[in-house]
């Protein structure tokens, strides 16, 4: 499964990058969403993937039954998802505002500040 997931991660990165390279700021944001999904899945993949064994401990026991999936990686992904969401919210509103001031969904109209 890790092999297949490598493909998924690569695919998500590739789609994200392609979108980020477009002139449209909306596409830029879509790219960011894909990028964060790709990175999160990469963490998931690297922790090793296990079917049907959530890191939960049955009621009244001290340890889970058998081998369970890596809870640390899951916690990291959770954190990363939330952070990604916060950042995305900001980015989304930013492009909205940028569109309002520039009146075009085109990055090429936004290059005055650089030089």
């Amino acid at each position, binding site marked *: 499964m890790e092999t297949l997931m490598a493909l998924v991660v690569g695919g998500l990165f590739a789609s994200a990058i392609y979108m980020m390279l477009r002139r449209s700021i909306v596409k830029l944001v879509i790219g960011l969403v894909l990028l964060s999904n790709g990175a999160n899945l990469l963490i998931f993949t690297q922790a090793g993937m296990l079917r049907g064994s959530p890191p939960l401990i049955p009621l009244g026991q001290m340890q889970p039954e058998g081998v369970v999936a890596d809870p640390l990686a899951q916690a990291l992904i959770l954190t990363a998802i939330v952070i990604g969401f916060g950042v995305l919210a900001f980015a989304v509103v930013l492009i909205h*505002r940028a569109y309002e001031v520039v009146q075009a969904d085109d990055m090429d109209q936004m290059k005055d500040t650089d030089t």
Partner: protein
Amino acid sequence: MRLEVALPVVLPLLFGALSVALWRWRTAQRITAVVGTGVLLLAAIWLLMSVWNNGVLAIHMGDWRAPFGIVLVADLLSAIMVVLAAITGLATAVYSLTSISQRHEHYGYYPLLHLLLVGVNGAFLTGDIFNMYVWFEVMLVASFALLILGGERAQMEGAIKYVTLNLLSSALFLTGIALIYGLTGTLNMADIADKLSTVEETGLVTVIGMLFMISFAIKAGAFPFFFWLPASYHTPQVAVSALFAALLTKVGVYALFRAFTLIFNQDVGYTHEILLWVAGATMLTGVLGAAAQFEFRRILSFHIISQIGYMLMGLALYTPLAIIGGVFYIMHHIIVKANLFLVAGLVYKLKGSYELKELGSVYRERPMLGFLFLVPALSLAGIPPLSGFFAKFILIRAGVEAESWGIVFVALLVGLLTLYSMIKIWAEAFWKAQPEEFAAKAPANPSGVKSMYFTIAAMASLTVFIGLWGQPIYLMAEAAALQLLDPRIYIDAVLGEGS
């Protein structure tokens, strides 16, 4: 248990939270801003003294022992960085009291300030690689918000580039963390270093190190990753620019120092050679960028880049003296750079413009301000006996000792070109008579200039102080460098002796 190691993170967080909770009361927020950053400075100094006396300190958050829980670690470099952040924070807060509009205050300026400091200090202190990512993001989002506060077109345009490129950096960072975790099964940096030191085939580690290098280099604004910086740094309120200029890129630099002394030291001949090239190119492109600019803040922004090059040069040469130089350079740079932006802000307040073409006569009218500009400006250019001279001197000496002639030449050349830029500002904004047609732009009775002067003067005194009393600063940099070059000290402090 070392409380002081956590305070630089907890305090601004507390004050930040308080400041958000008190959003209705402007005065309360203003008080929180000054008191909060003031207390932070005291705590930071406490930490520095404590580390100086006791060596590397660690606090295991939640009392979960390393490497399982998150550890905050303060070695000298971290403690120094925290003190610098606190100084910048306090300076910015005081300066902002009169330079920030009520509207900015109403929409969360001070909470953002505190929380930015949380992120910055967190990144400096954490001993956990993923936790560092979290603090990076805290810092980043706080800076996003500060960057757009005001809502002008230029801010939006700049912010888009800033946000995008920094998010790319974050994604690469996260990718790197994932891979390192996959290999070592741990997140604690000391533990990673410890475990990697027993691994024989480290090629893949070095490859992953490249991901970290690129990610941090983007944050640090190094060549060829710096584009976000000149695109955005001149757009927000100048107090914000000052804060950014002083701290944000330095977090990237700090991360590079940390990662490429502690974790990725398997193939120094390769990794640090790359860093050396990056350093040289960063210096040159940055300074040339500045030479092409004619706006106060833009010139300063490009100079941040070239200065980053010097710091990286210190890391890249990887000799004790070079690392000392790098650390010294960071200390000097943070204060000087923040101050230059603050001066720019005051000039703007007095003259109503940042364009050199439109400025003039500042020296005629405000000789003191002229002097206060020259101190950081000449320091930046490395003119003795100011702080920047010692920083450059150490680096160049390190370069000469390492017989890295190319980088020495570049460092010298860039010093000269820096002087050129600073003199350009001086000649145009301070010496030249202001063209009549722009004189009208100046506000009639600028208010609140005093506290701005006060801040600038205090920062300038620090610059002079570092220059005139360079020995203690040097000793500190030396001790910090020696700690950095012996990762075992850090590892033992985190994981316990004999781990």
